[in-house]
Every structure is written in structure tokens, then in C-alpha cells.
């Protein structure tokens, strides 16, 4: 299970890539997002969206909505709220299309960044109203990785993410997944894991470095 070198991978994310055992793995999600972005087509679609092209926006929606809805649902948990946030994110992509900067990263990364940011904002503003959610998030943390493991069964890309997550130390993995999938601040992560703040900051960073290298992200 040692991460092997994947330097030859293109930096385009989400493209299903042949790996050993690929035949046994099902792929239930539409892979339009992955393929389109892999060919750099999403950047072109985004340019058309920026000119107010509704048809292009429909294509963009099909390509990105599963990614956006997935991460928002993961962080927010509540289905109705997650649909709301997903809609907000997609509208934001429409609104900001002309400001998308291809040199700053892929469309997929841009969308995922906005989606996660919105999801986290939603969770934190709810938290401000009720700190009980925080306590719950902290209680739930032990299940974070199990749930990830459960869901990632379904996609090739997920298979790779899971393998890369396994390559982390437990503390690195928990620091990254609690922050990303549960939307906790690193202070909350430190609290949850009863670990000093500087340790968490460091583990979060070296965990992400290891993930990045394992996944072959080159930017």
C-alpha cells in the first residue's frame, strides 16, 4: 500500500485513471466533471459562461454539481441546507465566471474551494447560534475516517484518495479530515484531539504535503 510515484499524472484532477484492480471497482457517479476538466474543457466552458451563455452554464452545472453537492453535504450534513448551499455555490460560479483565473488553478479546484468555504461558513454561523453542534462535531470525529472509507469505495478517484489517506499517520489523517470533512477550525481540531495547537498546525501541514505528493498534485 505504499504510495508509488505518480509524477507522470497530469495535474488535472478527478480523471479516472487505470490502476490495478480497476475492473473490480464500480463507478456510479457521472464522470463528466472529471473528463471535461481533464481535457481543460471546463476552462473553455467557463469562458462561455462568463459571456452569459446559459447552455454553457448547464454543462458546467452537470460537470460540477456532484462535486459541490458531495462536499457540502459532507460538511453541512443536513440535506435541505446542503441543497441550498449547493445552489448558492453554483450561482456564485455563474456570477464570478468572468473572474475565474485559469493560471490560479483548475475550474474543479476553484469550485471545490468555493463550495467548501460556503459549507464551512454555513456550519460556523449555525454554530454561533448553537454551540451544541460543536460538541457534536467533536463527538463525531472518530467516525470521520470510517465514513470516508465507506463512501470512497465507489470511485476510482476515491480509491486513490483512500489509499493516500492511509499513507498518513493517524494524527495527520485526523487533523486533515476533521478540518476538511467536519469543517472544524484547527483550534477545534486541537481541542477534539486533545493535542497542542502547534502540533496540530504542523501535522495538518505535513499531512497535506504527503497527500499532495501521493495524489500527484503538481501545482
Amino acid at each position, binding site marked *: 500500500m505504499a504510495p508509488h510515484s505518480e509524477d507522470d499524472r497530469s495535474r488535472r484532477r478527478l480523471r479516472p485513471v487505470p490502476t490495478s484492480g480497476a475492473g473490480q471497482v464500480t463507478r456510479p457517479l457521472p464522470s463528466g466533471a472529471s473528463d471535461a476538466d481533464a481535457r481543460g474543457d471546463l476552462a473553455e466552458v467557463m469562458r462561455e459562461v*462568463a459571456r*452569459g451563455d446559459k447552455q454553457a452554464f448547464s454543462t458546467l452545472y452537470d460537470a460540477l454539481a456532484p462535486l*459541490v453537492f458531495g462536499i457540502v453535504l459532507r460538511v453541512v450534513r443536513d440535506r435541505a441546507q446542503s441543497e441550498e448551499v449547493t445552489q448558492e455555490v453554483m450561482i456564485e460560479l455563474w*456570477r464570478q465566471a468572468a473572474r475565474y483565473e485559469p493560471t490560479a488553478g483548475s475550474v474543479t479546484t476553484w469550485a471545490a474551494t468555493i463550495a467548501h468555504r460556503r459549507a464551512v461558513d454555513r456550519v460556523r454561523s449555525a454554530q454561533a447560534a448553537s454551540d451544541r453542534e460543536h460538541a457534536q462535531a467533536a463527538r463525531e470525529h472518530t467516525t470521520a475516517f470510517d465514513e470516508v472509507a465507506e463512501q470512497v469505495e465507489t470511485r476510482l478517484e476515491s480509491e486513490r484518495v483512500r489509499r493516500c489517506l492511509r499513507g498518513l499517520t493517524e494524527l495527520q489523517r485526523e487533523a486533515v479530515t476533521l478540518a476538511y470533512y467536519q469543517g472544524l477550525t484547527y483550534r477545534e481540531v486541537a481541542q477534539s484531539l486533545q493535542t497542542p495547537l502547534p502540533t496540530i498546525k504542523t501535522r495538518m501541514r505535513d499531512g*497535506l504535503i504527503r*497527500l499532495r505528493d501521493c495524489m500527484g498534485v503538481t501545482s
Partner: protein
Amino acid sequence: MTQQQHHSDLHTLTAAYALHALDAAERDGFVAHLAHCEDCRREVSGFEATAARLAGAVGRTPPEALKRRTLAAVEAVRQLPPRVPAAGPAAGLARVVRRRAVPLALAASLVATVSFAGLAAWQHQENEAARQQARQAQERLEAVSGVLAAPDARTVHGRTTNGAVATVVSSDRQNRAVFTATGLPVPAEGHTYQLWLDHKGTMRPAGLIHADGTVLLDGDPADATGVGLTLEPAGGSTRPTTQPLLLLSLPA
């Protein structure tokens, strides 16, 4: 706290920033740092791409109806225009700011606000023509952008004991320095923040700053070894009367 520690401490936050795991105040501080730290930007960009894969791993198909609702909703949403360089001096400044990788907070406060040290003095002469104020503001702006554009401009950063992020950009050749702060708490009634230049251990008044923003320092920064910030009674003091909130060494 040395600047070295401060810098490496901030650098560790790249991951927490990319994972949206910073609280609002820390995020602002880090964004200011990011604007002049190219290594950090590169690292953040890689981390964001990595995080996007973590998102991809939990993808879910949303309900059909959501697409219809979303497509209907955008009908009523005006798209933002592309970013174009603004006309006039602000555009020139924006270029300078980009080229010199000056902190975003500094750039924003320069372009968007006019919170200069001289401003307090103008307040009792409000009847003076707005034109006059605009002219003075423009001069200040030019002086500030001159410092930022100076080939020998040096930048140091620090955090005040009350949590603000501070930056000093100085040019020995121009014998001028610019101070900017983000996140300064509003001072108590009858108080203001005062800047100091450290001349061989003697603190000389270098101007007032009442809120977040950017000021040109009074005095001779070329001869100074550091910049200090204290809370003083409104109008300022001739020497510091409270514990410094910030002491930054200027690069020799």
C-alpha cells in the same frame, strides 16, 4: 517574538488556510501575509488542489430538481464584469502593489481608504474645501506609492499585542516609511494609537493612526532602528506613556 518566528509561524498556517480551518481574524492576518509570500501562495495553491480531490472523493449526485431551480435562479443574477485595471493613479499604484507584492491589506487600504496621519489634523477645519483634502490625500498617496515603488523598499511584519497585523515598508533612499495595520481594535474614547521611530533607544513621535489603514511615518526612518506603536491620549504624546503594543526592528 522575533520576526523570524513570526514568519515561520504564519507559514505553518498554509494548510489550515487551505482547509478553511482558520477563524476570521487569523484568516485576515494570513491573507495579508500571503500577498507577499510567494512560497506560501504556491503551497496554498497545491493544498487547494489536494483538498479538491478530497471533495471529489465524496461526490454525490444532487437531486434533479436542484438543477432546474438553479438554472431558473441565475436568470435573475447579474454576472460580475471581468477585472480590468482601473484608470488613473490607483491603477498605477495597483501595478506597483502587484509588482512589489505588497500585502493585500496594505494595497486595499491604499486604494480604498484615505486614513492618513494628517487626517486627524484636518478634522477641525472641515469647512475647508473638499478639493484641498483631495489634493492632500493625493500627495500622501503619491508619497506612499513612491515608498512602495522604491527599488530599495524593505518590508517587515509583526503582530501587535492586541492582535492587529502590522507592516512597515521603508526606503532609506527616500528616507520615508509607510505603516499599515489591519485588525486594530477601536481605541477607547479619548485615545489614539501613536507611532514611534526608535533612534538609538530614543522614541520619537512618528504620527498617529486611529484605525486600520495606512500612514506615512513622520521623521527620519533612515536613521531609525525600529518602529513602535503605543496607545496614547487623543492628540498624541511627546514620549510613549504606555507599554508598546508593537516593536518592529527596521532592516539595517
